[in-house]
């Protein structure tokens, strides 16, 4: 009684427990409580439970408990409680019919209640038998051993409206406009930029050097070559006019050479400057 877990799975129940103080407590294994013991005793009367002699049953029960105690075995408390109750019932049953108190059942009624409780326990026992006798799934009958799973086929219905589409295209191309503008700016060498760079570079180089040498680092790709050359050349002419730069080209399409100017504004007498040409 009162043990959890393993017992519920049909594990062995010890018949006798050592309570740790030397005395043995009869667990009355095989009997599931006093009611069960009573039912077992009642069955031995071999009569219909509703016509059973509760008096005889009470005597049997008390004898049984007495025998256990005679064997100097400790009996679990609830069996003793039942024994006490049965002794009381027995004494009342044996007395002549007493005056019945209003709110108290008579001894006969108590006996009937006990008989009915026993009958009910027996009924549920029978029902348990019937229930466990049924073919059980996974024990007697079997479900599909290799079930075929239902594959879920996801189908997507895509949603987008023409509005979504046009809005996406419009804003996409709008971004595109801004972006293209930026790219142009990077790809064109502004005159001012070219002038600033030439001023800085030429100051560092004392003698004639080809213009390409100054510009090579800025000609990052074929598409930038033309703009770098054009802007640099235009800027160089301006710098020559201001006397900050001297420029020389031996013949058309020949390399253009630059060097630091005298610092005086150009008077136009330098012959080389006129014949220069931009590379196409």
């Amino acid at each position, binding site marked *: *009684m*009162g*043990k*959890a*877990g393993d*017992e*519920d*799975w*049909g*594990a062995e129940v010890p018949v006798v427990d050592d309570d740790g103080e030397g005395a043995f407590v009869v667990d009355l294994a095989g009997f*599931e*409580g*006093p*009611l*069960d013991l*009573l039912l077992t005793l009642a069955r031995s009367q071999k009569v219909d439970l509703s016509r059973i002699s509760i008096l005889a049953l009470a005597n049997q029960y008390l004898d049984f408990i007495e025998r256990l105690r005679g064997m100097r075995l400790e009996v679990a408390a*609830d069996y003793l409680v039942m024994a006490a109750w049965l002794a009381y019932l027995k004494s009342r049953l044996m007395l002549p019919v007493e005056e019945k108190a209003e709110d108290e059942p008579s001894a006969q009624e108590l006996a009937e*209640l006990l008989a*009915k*409780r026993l*009958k*009910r*326990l027996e*009924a*549920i*026992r*029978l*029902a*348990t038998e*019937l*229930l*466990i*006798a*049924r*073919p*059980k*799934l*996974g*024990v*007697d*009958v*079997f*479900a*599909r*051993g290799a*079930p*075929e799973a*239902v594959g879920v086929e996801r189908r997507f219905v895509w949603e987008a409206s023409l509005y979504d589409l046009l809005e996406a295209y419009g804003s996409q191309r709008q971004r595109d406009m801004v972006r293209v503008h930026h790219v142009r700016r990077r790809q064109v060498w502004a005159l001012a930029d070219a002038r600033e760079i030439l001023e800085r570079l030429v100051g560092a180089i004392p003698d004639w050097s080809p213009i390409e040498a100054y510009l090579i680092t800025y000609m990052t790709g074929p598409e930038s070559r033309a703009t770098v050359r054009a802007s640099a050349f235009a800027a160089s002419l301006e710098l020559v006019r201001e006397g900050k730069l001297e420029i020389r080209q031996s013949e058309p399409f020949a390399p253009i050479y630059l060097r630091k100017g005298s610092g005086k504004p150009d008077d136009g007498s330098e012959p080389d400057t006129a014949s220069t040409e931009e590379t196409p």
Partner: protein
Amino acid sequence: MSRQDDHEGHAGLHVLKGNRTPEEHERWIDALRSVEAILFAAQDPLSVEEIAERLGPGVDIKRVLRDLKTMYASRGVNLVEVAGSWMFRTAPDLAHLMRKQAVETRKLSRPALETLAIVAYHQPVTRAEIEEIRGITTAKGTLDVLLETGWIRMRGRRKVPGRPLTYGTTDTFLSHFGLEAITDLPGLDDLKGAGFIEGVVPQGFSIPVPRDGDSLLPDEEPLTEVDLINLAPLPVEE
């Protein structure tokens, strides 16, 4: 294997032909084959609604099920209704062949089985009521074990002082014991016949008609969220 013209090939199907036009018959055969396939493939019982969902409209599934049940009644595999759902199972009389198939199942102890039966026949029932019938204290573990099997569940709380938990059975219980409904519990008539159902016995002594369904009785109240967390059965140790 042309289904259309080979009468012999239809095997069991042609016996159910009845008075149908060839077209109706063909549709009928299609319906039978389809439901047969769907149920045969499934491990768990399927409700009429679940079958209908797979089949699409226009099929009298209940009739198909009835016909299939008849067709399979004598076979090694039977079509059975369990808790309102349908499934194929091996025939009970062939259990001896199936022993090998049986996975090592732990057998419930007597007290646990008895408690299960009380929950089944008396539901909704409180622990105190179970103890009253059995005349013995029910170990806490017993109900836990039963909860763990998935055969019983906590339904709610009885509206009496102390608000004790009420227990009832589940669909898994019905399915395991091959019951169509809780009213199919064996011996129910005997119990009624013995006068345990009617109010002839004093209060608290009757074996009530087992109540089906999930709906709570007037004297029950639902579990609260806190209950559901606190009462979640702990896994039972092996």
